[in-house]
């Protein structure tokens, strides 16, 4: 009798907990994607390499800037295409969006000044490192979340 009661209460508890988890959380995030991860790592390297050359006249780096802009557009579009991936897309736009982003400020500043001073270059490099590390960290945090 007691055993039957215990089983019954376990089932009721289980059902209530399942319902509770379903109602309260309803959290849904995208799965880990190795292409998204690779996009962030690749662009981090390319952007930091470009910033390292920002003491040169910007006219010497126009092709490189356009190339990185194209890669960034592809990476943002890819992030947008993944289901439940709004948080990572927001990070991409904050770092590499065409407007109102770290990238937009950097290109505007470099265009205006032609060449960036060492301390400005260093600050920019640090900012991009943290931004890309944030994207990479979020992407790798998804590992193990496969259900």
């Amino acid at each position, binding site marked *: 009798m007691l055993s039957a009661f*215990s*089983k019954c209460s376990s089932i009721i508890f289980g059902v209530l907990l399942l319902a509770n988890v379903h109602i309260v959380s309803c959290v849904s*995030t995208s799965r880990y994607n190795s292409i998204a991860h690779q996009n962030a790592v690749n662009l981090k390297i390319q952007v930091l390499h470009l910033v390292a050359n920002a003491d040169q006249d910007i006219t010497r780096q126009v092709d490189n800037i356009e190339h990185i802009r194209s890669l960034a557009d592809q990476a943002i579009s890819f992030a947008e295409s993944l289901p439940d991936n709004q*948080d*990572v897309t*927001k990070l991409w736009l904050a770092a590499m969006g065409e407007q109102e982003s770290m990238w937009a400020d950097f290109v505007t500043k470099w265009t205006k000044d032609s060449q960036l001073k060492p301390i400005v270059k260093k600050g920019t490099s*640090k*900012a991009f490192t943290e931004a890309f590390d944030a994207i990479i960290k979020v992407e790798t945090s998804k590992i193990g979340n496969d259900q």
Partner: protein
Amino acid sequence: MRHIDEIKDEVGSLVKGFLEKEMGILIENTQEALDSFSSDLPLWIEAFQKGEISQDDLDYLLKQKERTININGQKLEAISKIELEKLQNSILDTVVGSII
């Protein structure tokens, strides 16, 4: 069929682990942000006072720092959601596993 107390204990320990991990991430990120700001800001102000950088340079650096802080905030929010979903899945596994 497992006893209800076992399930409660397991779910409790999953939630405890989740909260400890979240607190750890929050403390670590806050510390990193404070360290970053306290190391950069004095250097920039000194360079500005010495005339090594212009007002526009300083404004630009501060704006990039503001963007970095916002990005780190968004990162924490995103990681919290991912960890919460992992917790949700672990609880589901525990409960379903105990019923079946």
